[in-house]
């Protein structure tokens, strides 16, 4: 984009010209600023002599020229440190004055990684939370995102309970319906692809699994839009910045070995009828079928579940000199799932290398990491069949072709889950490497001007193979075996170039720092897959198909490009008045000509009241900062090529007989060629506060996010396009809420080593779909597939209510609180909301939704001598779950259908439903809960001079909830349909350093 380029260039030139290059006068002051406690150099310290100031550089050195000879008071000041006033005398040459600062509110001076740079925590104008490794969740953590679960206010981390299973993160609620609501992940400055986890992985596992949590140094979450806006079109859902561990220079070198072993058990499974109850139900509702029951007493869930073990080993070696440092790491993880046949195994390597050259002017940082993940999946249908298989039937049958007992019927019926586990195969292998090389060069001709280049890559190759033999009962009935293999590859590359200018001298009353740059991202993915059904033989298993009746072979190629220009200016007056302005201009291949470019600006202001003289020392305040910001961010995380009118060919099974031959057909797609960005406009107001030198500190934020031009697959008028649904920009959505986080070092006794640090987070979010249709009328879109029947949808997108609200009938209850069942006269059973005397679709109404209204988290860390302990508690309030296992299995009709009798959910004993009542709000349950996520106890000692640590962790210790199903947290969509059960995991581990 030429005009912008010019503006950036001109701005750069202006900076160059304005800088006083060699305005040296008589005297000057130079020296080095260090931390009194650590003796480490401090950068970013404002040193003032008379009316001239300078900032100390990375090596702690500062230089102030143009000081007339005389006596002065040198003032050195940095947030989080005590002010130093030092009398000096300047002669005609350069005076050497080294300064030592004493930390006070150290937290405020901590360096926090932000987009394209770093900032002191106390100077940040946006809502940013950094979590460092000492605060991470412990135990068996497979994906890095789990490290910060319930640690950050406003951030919801949702896992699917499987080992290494796909994770979702929602920062301040969902901002989109059809596009992704996942944040952008940036690892060591390299933005990963968009979508959950950023990048490619085998379906059902998290893409970030390639990164061993042991290699993560800290994770910073850019919660509000003003902080995230520098990432423009990918920032609408927030940004998660992950920094990996690197070499520590001369200090802290050596080997580190961590090892742990774990055991996991199933916490809860669906409540199905036991054998005796089932036999009674069959006798009552399907007496003719009682003879089919074989009198066994089989607990199917206990047969498919297991106590799962896991182990993890990480070795790292760090070393370095003053100018360089490196870290090598090697990790191995093997974790079985609590349902048989599921597991994940990871081998990972990582190298971080950093080097400073040319008298520290050039800094190089390289990070390369790679992993191979081997995933095994429980074959599809095992959980559903464990629920549906009659408990009166035996598990084994030596006379059958599989060796397992199954109903002998041609009609759809539950089948033996153990046969699937034993004979079917479903596994995937993912290879992934992400790396980057970053060079930062402090240009010699202008102090404070740095040029940065960052080259990154992300290569991933992911295979998934599924084999279901043709002799499994369900296959014998219908599909006669399945073989599926997908070999997906994706190669992304990123080039980013940016300059930062942070002049040592003040500009006007404060200091300025400028950042401007260019980013080029491209991605190439190939997604071939092959599916064969109706297998002729099972002989080769998952190695291949010698013969099959139906074979589908597809190859998709997807290319994507994102080109960006960005700039940011920070202005800081005495750490009291802070301003940040940023803009990003993005061009994306996902839009057609004229719609490719979008601009995403942000403005943030902050006022550190505690820096004002009138507040100094009041109420023990060490920090009080008011913040306000506005920003516009974008979202383009959806399919490619939506702007093109494409034609789709039919496959071999959807041809049309045309006269005397089969013809492969073509279908035009419904297209909106003018599709453009989703935009989210956000306001944030916050206050940061701290007392007693930040011993107690906290932050409160209020926000509102308005997403407009929501990309939405919406119904259009039947004659308006080439289908009744088109993906287009229609609709808007609003998220509003607030976040509170409080932290305290409650006990701090240095000599005895006794300490207690605690944190509390609370966040509240309300979501409202404002419109899905230009006419703002009562239109609604149903979604949310459930099991039971065919094509039943349980959720609704309707203006005025939260997205994915459940859309159900209002159940009537009798005096004893039992739901009324009267299928012949539905008006007795449900409230006839429109009073027309019949119960039909018009009587369903939106009723609660799956997202939590309140998320509360608490973490405590204790130390006492050599012992340390911590625990994490999490609570959700106001989240609702549709218990689909109960609704589809909790009806006596499941005993009398055309298939063999299927086991019933225990809810049927209460409801007495004969015909399934999928749309009864009885099945929409309040799933608020309180859970102790994590309890950890460690003991530190040394053996032959080497530090050792042993620890034990319990994850998911217990949950208090009124929800009757398996897990109140599983999944974002709030539909509990035979989900993978949650595990309780006990881990013991050892850390050694030598």
């Amino acid at each position, binding site marked *: 984009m030429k005009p912008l380029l010019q503006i950036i260039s001109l701005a750069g030139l202006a900076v160059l010209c304005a800088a006083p290059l060699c305005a040296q006068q008589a005297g000057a002051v130079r020296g080095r600023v260090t931390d009194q406690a650590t003796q480490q150099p401090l950068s970013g310290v404002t040193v003032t002599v008379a009316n001239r100031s300078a900032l100390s550089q990375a090596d702690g050195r500062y230089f102030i020229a143009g000081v007339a000879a005389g006596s002065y008071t040198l003032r050195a000041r940095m947030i989080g440190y005590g002010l130093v006033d030092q009398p000096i005398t300047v002669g005609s040459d350069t005076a050497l004055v080294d300064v030592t600062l004493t930390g006070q509110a150290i937290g405020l001076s901590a360096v926090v990684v932000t987009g394209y740079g770093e900032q002191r925590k106390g100077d940040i104008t946006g809502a940013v939370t950094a979590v460092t490794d000492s605060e991470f969740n412990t135990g068996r953590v497979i994906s890095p995102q789990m490290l910060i679960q319930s640690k950050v206010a406003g951030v919801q981390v949702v896992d699917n309970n499987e080992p290494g299973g796909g994770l979702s993160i929602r920062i301040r609620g969902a901002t989109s319906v059809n596009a992704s609501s996942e944040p952008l992940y940036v690892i060591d400055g390299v933005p990963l692809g968009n979508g959950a986890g950023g990048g490619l992985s085998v379906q059902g596992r998290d893409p970030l699994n390639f990164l061993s949590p042991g290699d993560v140094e800290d994770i910073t979450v850019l919660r509000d839009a003003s902080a995230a806006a520098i990432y423009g079109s990918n920032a609408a859902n927030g940004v998660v910045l992950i920094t990996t561990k690197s070499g520590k220079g001369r200090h802290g070198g050596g080997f580190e070995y961590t090892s742990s072993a774990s055991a996991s058990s199933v916490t809860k499974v669906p409540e199905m009828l036991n054998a005796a109850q089932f036999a009674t139900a069959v006798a009552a509702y399907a007496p003719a079928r009682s003879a089919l029951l074989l009198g066994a007493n089989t607990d199917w869930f206990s047969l498919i579940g297991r106590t799962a073990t896991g182990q993890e080993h990480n070795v790292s070696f760090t070393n370095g000199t003053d100018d360089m440092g490196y870290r090598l790491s090697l990790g191995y993880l093997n974790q079985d799932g609590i349902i048989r046949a599921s597991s994940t195994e990871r081998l990972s390597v990582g190298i971080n290398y950093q080097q400073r050259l040319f008298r520290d002017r050039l800094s190089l940082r390289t990070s390369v990491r790679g992993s191979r993940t081997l995933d095994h999946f429980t074959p599809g249908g095992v959980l559903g069949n464990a629920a549906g298989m009659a408990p009166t039937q035996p598990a084994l049958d030596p006379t059958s072709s599989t060796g397992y007992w199954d109903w002998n019927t041609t009609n759809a019926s539950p089948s033996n889950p153990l046969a699937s586990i034993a004979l079917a195969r479903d596994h995937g292998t993912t290879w992934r490497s992400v790396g980057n090389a970053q060079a930062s060069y402090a240009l010699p001709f202008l102090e404070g001007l740095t040029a940065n280049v960052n080259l990154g890559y992300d290569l991933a190759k992911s295979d998934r193979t599924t084999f279901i033999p043709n002799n499994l009962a369900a296959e014998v009935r219908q599909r006669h075996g399945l073989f599926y293999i997908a070999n997906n590859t994706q190669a992304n590359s990123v080039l980013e170039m940016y300059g930062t200018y942070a002049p040592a001298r003040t500009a006007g009353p404060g200091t300025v720092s400028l950042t401007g740059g260019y980013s080029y991202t491209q991605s190439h993915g190939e997604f071939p897959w092959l599916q064969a059904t109706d297998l002729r033989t099972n002989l080769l298993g998952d190695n291949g198909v010698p013969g099959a009746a139906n074979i589908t072979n597809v190859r998709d190629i997807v290319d994507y490009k994102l080109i960006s220009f960005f700039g940011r200016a920070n202005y800081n007056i005495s750490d009291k008045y802070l301003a940040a302005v940023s803009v990003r201009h993005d061009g994306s291949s996902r839009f057609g000509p004229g719609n490719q470019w979008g601009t995403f600006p942000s403005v943030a202001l902050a006022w550190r009241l505690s820096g004002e003289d009138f507040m100094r020392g009041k109420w023990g305040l060490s920090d009080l900062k008011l913040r306000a910001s506005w920003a516009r961010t974008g979202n383009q995380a959806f399919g490619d090529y939506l702007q093109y009118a494409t034609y789709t060919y039919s496959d071999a*099974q959807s041809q049309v*007989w045309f006269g005397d031959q089969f013809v492969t057909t073509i279908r035009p797609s419904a297209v909106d060629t003018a599709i453009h960005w989703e935009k989210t406009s956000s306001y944030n107001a916050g206050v940061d506060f701290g007392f007693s030198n930040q011993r107690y500190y906290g932050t409160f934020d209020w926000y509102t996010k308005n997403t407009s031009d929501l990309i939405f697959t919406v119904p259009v008028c039947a004659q308006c396009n080439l289908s009744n649904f088109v993906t287009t920009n229609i609709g808007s959505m609003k998220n509003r809420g607030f976040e509170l986080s409080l932290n305290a070092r409650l006990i701090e006794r240095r000599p005895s080593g006794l300490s207690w640090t605690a944190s509390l987070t609370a966040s509240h979010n309300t979501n409202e779909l404002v419109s899905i249709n230009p006419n703002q009328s009562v239109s609604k879109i149903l979604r949310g597939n459930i099991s039971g029947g065919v094509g039943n949808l349980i959720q609704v997108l309707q203006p005025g209510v939260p997205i994915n609200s459940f859309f159900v009938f209002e159940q009537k209850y009798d005096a004893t609180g039992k739901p009324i069942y009267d299928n*012949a006269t539905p008006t007795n059973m449900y409230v006839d909301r429109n009073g027309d005397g019949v119960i039909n679709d*018009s009587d369903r109404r939106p009723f609660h939704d799956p997202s939590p209204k309140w998320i509360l988290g608490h973490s405590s860390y204790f130390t006492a001598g050599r012992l340390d302990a911590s625990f994490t508690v999490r609570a959700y309030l106001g989240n609702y779950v549709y218990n689909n296992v109960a609704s589809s299995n909790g009806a006596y009709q499941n005993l009398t259908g055309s298939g063999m009798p299927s086991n019933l959910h225990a809810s049927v004993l209460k409801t007495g439903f004969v015909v399934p009542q999928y749309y009864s709000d009885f099945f929409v349950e309040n799933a608020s809960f309180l859970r102790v996520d994590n309890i950890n106890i460690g003991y530190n000692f040394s053996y032959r001079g080497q530090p050792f640590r042993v620890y034990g962790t319990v994850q998911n210790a217990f949950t208090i909830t009124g929800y009757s199903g398996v897990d109140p947290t599983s999944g974002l969509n709030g539909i509990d349909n035979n989900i993978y059960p949650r595990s309780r995991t006990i881990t013991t581990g050892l850390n050694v350093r030598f």
Partner: protein
Amino acid sequence: MNRTTKAVSVAAVLLSLSWTGCTDPTVAPKSSVTSANIFNDPNSYRAFIAKIYGGLIVTGQRGPDGNPDIGGIDEGFGEYLRLYWYLQEMPTDEAVIGWNDPGLGDLNRGIWGPSNSMVNAMYYRVFYQIMLANEFLRQSTDAKLDARGQNDPTLRTNVHFYRAEARFLRALSYWHGIDLFGAIPLVTEADPLGVPPKQISRDSVYRFVVTELNAVVGALPPAGASTYGRATPAAAHMLLAKLYLNAGIYTGTANYAGAVTEAAAVIAAGYSLDTSFVHNFQADNNTSPELIFVAAQDGGGTQTWGGMTFLIHAGCGGSMSAGTYGVDYCWGGYRMKQQIYRLFAAGDKRAAFFWTTGQTDSVADIGNFSNGIAAPKFTNKKSTGANGTQMGMVDTDFPIFRLADAYLIYVEANIRGGGGSAATALGYLNAIRQRAYGSTSANFAALPPVDTLLAERGRELMFEAGRRTDLVRFGLFSTATYVWAWKNNVPGGAALAAGRDLYPLPANELIANPNLQQNPGY
């Protein structure tokens, strides 16, 4: 600053500028084809017209599901003919299904509303066909072919046939549209996309359809080896016969004379009644001499969860064995209501396949498959007794028009005063009766009163997706004159609410297109 540093700086700056020159984010699709190039392939014209035929039976570009044409409904039951069957059979005296599929129960009970997903999906399927046909007509003009250099005379000839066929298929869907929904918008290839059209009267759409059919009847490909599954002139005559027979309903002015003329044209086209009634509904029904227009299915090549896959699987249930019907398992779906069952007299071979074991005659409980006699009319067995190519997906073609219907149209229109020969009419009626009984024992001596034709149509054409239209024409669909089980949600039956002779326009459609006026009563 030393020389090396300078060189590095200059190189870095130049490199940066060269990269920042990359400011075009455009990426053209590689593994998909677009409107820009698809019609450069001469095969694309046939592929496109085949898609419009396929729109009647397959639901998307992956069989049997996985890449749907329309949204907002489960792909399986969002199939055109399955929806049409639901709308034409479920609220009548013929069929009942106990499934909980969304919207289905309300059709059973005659209490559907404007948000009923089956009704809505039918509307979208109708216009999906129309929009495809319009797009085809836009893309296949002589001028477009000239511009693309498609000058092969054989291709030109074929494209002219295809264009006539597209207009026929558009007319067929418009007929379904006015029959089910009344006044609807009329859009042709001349109307631009993206503009919500005006609604016009049922009468005006009717006149458009009649004009179109008369215009294309001579341009359709003559029946022959290369037209199975395609529309021939006889198919256009048949559609005209059906339009004229119901003209009184569509326009207020009857046209029985037109119905007689067009039915006669169909009958003269060389079709004959198959000696075996059931062969018309078997896996090899493509060899029946009676079928005028079909939606062809094939267990291997044309897979769908709708059409015959649905009709064969869903007709099987209770104590029946799926293998008897050449399928893998029974879905336990539709049975007869007692009213239609009781129309069949002893000796009528059209009742030979009824399944009574474990079934009751009356439908007291819709949800229980054992309520109502089962009638597995359609099967995936060939007339030889062999199975179709697969047992999951079926080979049986969906008969949209067959000769027996043309006979009955001739007879009814004649009785109603449309002219033609009464003797010929009696002959047609008795030909049907004779096949049904295997003898002349049940023949009529003279043409019966017209009400008997409704019963005969019920017996002959049961479950062939025409019942609602027939009942409306006889004034019995929504009134209290004739009631059946669960009509208006009462076990014994009652009059439907006012306006139920038409289905409502989809609630979403009224919002998406403010020009639309909902049908009275909704």
